[in-house]
Structure formats: C-alpha cells, structure tokens
C-alpha cells in the first residue's frame, strides 16, 4: 500500500513538473512556426507518404522564397516536422502524440488514410490541436471532433456517386464488393456503396459482399464466389498495391465485367504494379491530372518537373491542405507564443474559412470540419493516364 502511494506521488510530481516545463518554456519558438506532417513513408502505401512529403516540401519552398510566413505583419520561419507512421494505426497515434506534445507543432497535417486518421484524430482532438487530414474520407475521422478537419470529400458522398455511375454507365443491377475488413477506409466505403446500391436496386442486389484482411495476397476464393454470383460490376475500394493483385486475379479467374474503384486507386504507382490489366477501368477521385487547367496544371507541371512524375491525388490534396493551413494561420492574425492559445486561434480561423479555391475544387467547411466539394470520375486510358471522364457535385 505504502509503495503504491509513494509511486503515485512520484508520478504526480513528475506530471506536474513536466506540465510546468511545458508551460514555462515556449522554447524560444516565438519566431518559428512548426507544422507536423504525419505520413506513411514506409509500410503498405509508401507512395502516398512520398506524395505527401513532396507536396509539403514544395509548399515550404514557396514560404522560404517569400522570406517566411507573414502573420499579422511579422515574418515567421516555418519548420516542417515530418514523421513516418508506417501506415499503421498505432504508429499514427504515437506520432501524433510526439508531434503535439514533444515537438509542439502548431498544426498537424495528416495522417492520410482513414485507418490512421480515425485514431489519430482522437488524440489530436483530446490535445486540442488542429489536425487536417488531406486524404481520409471516412466520416469518423472528423465526427464529433471540433479540432479535426479534412480536405477531401466523404465516403457517404463517394459511395452513391459510384453507385449512380455504375448503374448508368454499365446498366448494372447486380454488384459485388471485395474489401479489406481490417481497414477503416475500405470497410466504410464498402458499406456505403452497399447501402446505396440496395437503396437503388432493392434488397439483395449486392450479390456478393466479400472481405479479406490486410496483407492478404490471394483472393481466389473470394473472386471465385464473386464470379459465380453473376455480378455485373465489381467494386474494390482498395489501395493501389492490392488493386493490382485483385484485378489480375479476377481476370485470371475469368471474371470479365467492369471493376470499379475509389479515390485510393489514384496513385502514381498503380499503373507500375497493375500494368495493362487496369486499363479501361474507372474510379472516383478528387482531381484528374490529364487535361487539368489553371492553378491545377501549374501545380502538376511544377511537381512533375521537380520529382519526375505526375502527382497523384494525395499530392494535390496535401498541397491544398498546406495552403488551407497557411490561410488559417494568417487569418488568426497573431502568434502569441503560448502554444495552447495559438492552437485554439488557428483552429477557429480554420473553421471560418469560406469558399477556399483549391486545386482540387472549392471548399467551405461544415460544422463537422468536412468540405463540401465535387468528385471526379476518372478513366484509366490506354496510355495508362488518369483521364477526366465526368464530374459529380453534391446536390
């Protein structure tokens, strides 16, 4: 009993001590603004992490070229703290805690996929720090979390967009879904697709609803069932490395129908892994690189020149996110040096942004911190490019 009491007191003292240190020493950070980047640099989807990092670094170049970030008439240095979350939920929360508590970032950008963004959002919200996810489309990321925002549209919007598209384009009435049950993004989107499809075509019109778990490579049992179910379209809301395997195996097992994807397909890496098998397929996404104009084209050209490939949607969305964060900081008007006050101020400024013109569309935020914006359906051309096919906006 005595031991417990002593250790409790020690812990209490330590906590108080640490808290006092944190509050007393703003570590001379008054003329430097730190922005945390929480990205999957290794793990399942490294290309996503790379796109995030490159876009953020391009943004930093612009800030440096302007001599710093101008907030309320004073120039501040900007420092990016880029941390790897290994595309794992537990690493993403650890990185979030580190960025906010240890590095004392003003704002955190990322994590990207919902599997990491949903749990990381909880941490950022509890620590009262603005988090903006450039790529997470699952509603739970921002739900009931005033400090969490995002740049892409949401899955409850993306699901019905794809359902309507598949119904009109292929005349399909029976659909199959193959998704990763252990990951928030595919699981959420698969369910939204299913409910929207059944609303349109009646109960039981999703003839196969098959799942697998992360890191599986063999989908032959599921695909054999899907082929056998007589589905006219297959929906696979997966990341690019799995898409390559699913599409190839589906074709090898003799499934001839269209395969439909979601925004997670839109990686520069998809065509390297999937090759000819993916040509002619459709997916919904945030922007189409082929045939872009204006600021979007300027971004694509600059990125392509610097890094040697056309940026995928993550790059474009991260770019928009950085500009949004920049605007929020500037709208806040002043940096006091008290990190808690500044974080609150930036968060409030973010919530008040109206009609922000990004390269992935115009954005105004809802109460939940979600933007209202349009989706694009992209067709993978015979040259392997992601071509604009049509745009779908919220009604």
């Amino acid at each position, binding site marked *: 009993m005595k031991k417990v009491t002593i250790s409790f007191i020690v812990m209490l003292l330590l906590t108080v001590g640490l808290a006092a240190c944190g509050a007393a020493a703003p570590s001379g950070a008054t003329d430097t603004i730190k922005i945390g980047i929480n990205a999957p*640099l*290794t*793990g*399942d989807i*490294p*290309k996503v*992490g*790379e796109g995030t990092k490159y876009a953020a670094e391009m943004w930093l170049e612009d800030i440096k070229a302007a001599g710093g970030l101008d907030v309320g008439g004073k120039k501040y240095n900007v420092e990016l703290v880029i941390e790897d979350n290994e595309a794992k939920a537990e690493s993403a929360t650890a990185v979030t805690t580190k960025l906010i508590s240890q590095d004392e970032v003003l704002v955190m950008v990322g994590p990207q996929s919902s599997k990491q963004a949903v749990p990381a959002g909880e941490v950022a919200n509890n620590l009262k720090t603005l988090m903006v996810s450039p790529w997470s489309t699952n509603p739970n990321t921002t739900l009931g979390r005033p400090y969490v925002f995002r740049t892409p549209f949401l899955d409850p919007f993306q699901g019905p967009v794809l359902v309507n598209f598949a119904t009109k384009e292929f005349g399909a009435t029976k659909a199959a879904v193959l998704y990763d*049950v252990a990951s928030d993004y595919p699981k959420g989107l698969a369910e939204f697709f299913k409910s929207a499809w059944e609303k349109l075509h009646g109960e039981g019109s999703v003839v196969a609803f*098959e*799942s*697998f*778990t992360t*890191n*599986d*490579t*063999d989908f*032959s*049992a*599921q695909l*054999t*069932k899907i082929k*056998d179910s007589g589905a006219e379209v297959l929906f696979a809301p997966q990341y690019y*490395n799995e898409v*390559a*395997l699913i599409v*190839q195996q589906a074709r*090898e*097992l*003799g499934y001839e129908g269209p395969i439909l994807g979601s925004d997670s397909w839109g990686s520069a*890496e998809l065509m*390297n*892994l999937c*090759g000819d098998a993916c040509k002619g397929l459709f997916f919904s996404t945030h922007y189409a690189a082929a045939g872009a104009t204006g600021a979007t084209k300027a971004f694509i050209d600059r990125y392509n020149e610097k890094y040697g490939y056309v940026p995928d949607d993550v790059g474009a969305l991260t770019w928009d996110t950085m500009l949004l964060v920049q605007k929020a900081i500037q709208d806040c008007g002043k940096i006091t040096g008290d990190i808690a006050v500044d974080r609150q101020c930036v968060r409030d400024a973010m919530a008040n942004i109206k009609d922000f013109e990004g390269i992935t569309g115009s954005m105004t935020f809802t109460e939940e911190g979600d933007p209202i914006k349009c989706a694009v359906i992209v067709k993978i051309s015979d040259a392997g490019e992601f071509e604009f096919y049509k745009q779908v906006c919220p009604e």
Partner: protein
Amino acid sequence: MAFFLQNVVNALQAGSFYALIALGYSMVYGVLLLFNFAHGDIFMVGAYVGFFVTTGALLLVSTLGLVALPGWVVLVLVILVAMLITAFVGVAVERIGYRPLRQAPRASAAITGLMIGIILETGNLALLGATRLSFPELIQTTTYTVGGVTLTNKRIMIVGVALLLMFALHQFVQRTKWGMAMRAMAYDFGVVPLMGVPLNSIAALTFALGSGLAAAAGILFSVAYPVLNPYMGITVGWKAFVAAIIGGRGSILGAALAGFLLGFIEIFVAVIFASTYRDLIAFSIILLILIFRPHGFFGEAHTSRLRL
C-alpha cells in the same frame, strides 16, 4: 461442381507455396532440432533475388541485342540461379546466426532467428526503399476453360514446379550419400557426428536446400502475385511454419501434405464462411489436429527417432 473444382485449383496453388516453404522449416528442425524463424524472410529474399536476376537478364538481352529466349526458359533459368544465390544466403544465416549458438539453449537460437528475419526485412527496406516492386511478366497468361473451371498456364506451372521440386528433394534425401547423412543426423543429433559425419557441413547443406526451395517458392509466388514488398514473407512464413508443425516435425512428406491441407482449409473456409473467419477457423482446425496428434501427421516424440 465447376465452382467446387475451381476452388480445388485455387487451393492447390495456395498450398504449393506453403508446402515448399514448410519443407525448409521441417528439414532444419529434423537435422538441428531448431526452428529457423528467419525462413519466411529467406522466402522474401528469394523473391527479390529472382526479381533482380530477371531484370538483369532482360536488360542484358536488350542491351546486347541477343536473341530473346522464350519466357519459360528464362523463368527456369531465373529459378535455378535464384535458388543457388539464396542457398548461399541461407548458408550465411546458418554460419553467422546459428552455428555460434549450437550449444546454447534453444530459446537463444529462436530469438536469433527472429532477429535475422527483422534484419533481412529492414535491411531490404533501407536498401531498396519502401516502394513496391512489380515482378516482370515472363510468360504471357493463357487462360484455359475446362468444364467451367478456369485454369491459367501460370497456375499449372506453379503447381507442377512445386511438385517436381518436392519429388527431387525426396529423391535427394533418400538416394544420395548426403541425404543419408542428413537422415542419420535427424536420427540422432548427438551421436552421429561422433561417427565421422561432419555436423557443420550437413547443417550448411540443410540450410542451403531449405533456402533454395524457399527461393523457388518466392519466385513462383511473385509470378502469381507480382507485387513484392519487404514484409511479404511474414504471414506466408508463419503459415508454412504451422504446416511444418502439423506435418510432423522433420517429415518431408508430412510438411508437403500439410502445406496443401492448409491451402485447402483456407480456401474452403473462405468459400463456405465469410472470409473474415478464414484464419480463425483454419487455425482452430489445426489446433484440433494437434490435440489428437500432438506430433503432427508423421512426427514422433522428441525422445524417439525423427524421420526425414
């Protein structure tokens, strides 16, 4: 019926990989009484070696303007070369990681195995980066439909090569002097070296054979699932390890059969139940098998003789 047969074909392919990898686990256990937990990562190394040999060969052909060999000839050559190179990796693992621990408690060797696995994975990540590699397509996929069952030339090739390699291994172990030495070592690890059988050479040979088979499995796996990543060996390796256990420790036939059995269980669980329950049910069945046959199908207790 076609649906059932289609899944049998699917299971045969999945089982081939497990069986080939399980053989490596089983042989090493048979001879040295240790589980080489780095074996799954040797499989990964094999796939990457295969990738580089293939890319190198294709580059050589295109730059020198040689007459391009047919794809399947290239594939056979690639498998042989990669098996040889990976065999050396396996021997190095044994020499550096396990030989110094020959007299140490078994737990030390098991931990070493796990560490070597992590070194191979993260070493690959550090050297090659996190970007996935796509295995070059050497043979064009041809699809045959027989009575509603879809077969591809790749699937037939994978199962065929796997069976051929297992047969070759069986012949080697049963018919050659080296094979006899391995069987003798499996019979009694303590006494046989006293009779003049060189323990270290036999250990190296066992690792070489196991790693070679793992490399073949790695390349066949890459042909079927052409996306390579540094962690591809973990799940497959663990499942093959389980197959080696249910096959009976040290039994070649057992490991091969159990590999295919695991493939069948996995595919049919995914067919009959939701695929979410696949691993749960597959491993529950395996637990049941082990309750009734604690030493696997063909295994015997540690104290009595071990087969190879």
